[in-house]
Every structure is written in C-alpha cells, then in structure tokens.
C-alpha cells in the first residue's frame, strides 16, 4: 500500500504565477482534503472533495480551487500566487464519513 502520495515534493514559483499540486489517495479511500501549513503553524483546512465535488471549504480565497477525478485523485490549483502562499501543502485521504485521515508527505511551495 503506497499510502497518500503527493507531487511534486518541492517547487518554486514567481509571484503572479499559477501552480497545480497533485495528490493520490490511499488505496480504497474516496475523500481527499487539502491543508496549508505555514512555517511554524498548524495545518489550516482549505477544502475537501468527495464524489468529485467540493464538500466543504475553509476560509481561503477563490484563488484556491481544486478538482477530484473519477479515480479519487485530486489537484489543488492556486492562481495569482502571493508571497504569503509559501507553505507546505498537505493532502489527506479518508474513507467516506470516517474521521481518520491519512496524510501525504506534502508539497513545499516557495513563492519568490
């Protein structure tokens, strides 16, 4: 079981650019959540996808959008990048309504 996998592991972008991060959930899981973890902080919930639809959203601007594919993998897109978007982006997967979530290793995004 490969667990939750995220790609890429690191990337550097320039202010104003757009970025796409990818996540493959743990085998058998159908729900994907995305979190942003700024340096020295706890993760903050961005949104959650289930059955290819956004089920819940945190307090993030519309520049943050996502998608879930039929195979349950997911993408996080961020437009018009700001310096403040620099963070570790974590993907977590779970099964339906179960509370336990499994996290990937994260993608470290640096905006310069």
């Amino acid at each position, binding site marked *: 079981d490969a667990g939750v996998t995220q790609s890429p592991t690191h990337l550097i972008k320039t202010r104003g650019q757009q970025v796409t991060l990818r996540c493959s959930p743990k085998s058998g899981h159908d729900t994907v959540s995305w979190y942003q973890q700024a340096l020295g902080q706890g993760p903050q*919930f961005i949104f959650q996808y289930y059955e290819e639809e956004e089920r819940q959203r945190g307090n993030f601007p519309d520049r943050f959008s996502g998608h879930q594919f039929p195979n349950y993998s997911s993408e996080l897109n961020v437009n018009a990048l700001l310096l403040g978007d620099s963070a570790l982006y974590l993907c977590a997967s779970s099964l339906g309504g179960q*509370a336990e979530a499994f996290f990937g290793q994260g993608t470290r995004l640096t905006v310069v």
Partner: protein
Amino acid sequence: AQSVTQLDSQVPVFEEAPVELRCNYSSSVSVYLFWYVQYPNQGLQLLLKYLSGSTLVKGINGFEAEFNKSQTSFHLRKPSVHISDTAEYFCAVIRGGGNKLTFGTGTQLKVEL
C-alpha cells in the same frame, strides 16, 4: 466555532523522562480528538485518536492520551521518551458529524541526552 489550544510551544525533556503535552479544545458539541506527529520535512502521522468509548486512548510508539470532557482537554503522555521522539506534535479536533480537522499550533518536543 471550535478551536484548539496547545499551551506549550516547546517542551525540552531528558531521555527516559516522562512527558506530557497539553491540549485544550473549545466546542459546544461532541468532538473527535487526535494527536499527530510531524518529523522534519515530512507529513503528519497519526499517533492516536478518540472517537468514543474509553477515555484513555493508547497509540503508537508508547504514547497515550486521556479525554477529559469536563476540562475539555486531551493531553498526550509518554512515561519514558526516546531521542527519536523529537518532533512536532499537533492536537486536532473534528466537530461531531463534521469532516475537517482543526489543528492547534503545535508543540515542539525536544529530547536531550
């Protein structure tokens, strides 16, 4: 709204000593409670969880936590720490019936020889 407070940002402790990492939450409804560990440059690993039942929960690596509803606390304990326990520890809650995790700001546990 719910929030999670981790009272200590850093906890230094000598190897083989006991440790307690404190976590308090605020919620007017039932909650599920979790402790996660994060090693440098890695994601989060679940240590233990409280969903219902016994208030004393045992997790991996010898950690345990006790759910105290009257004090709205979920403190993490280990009777004897090891150098390899050095990491960041996060307490998190899910509001009963909800789906999103709300995390505390983390406690850096540093185990010294």
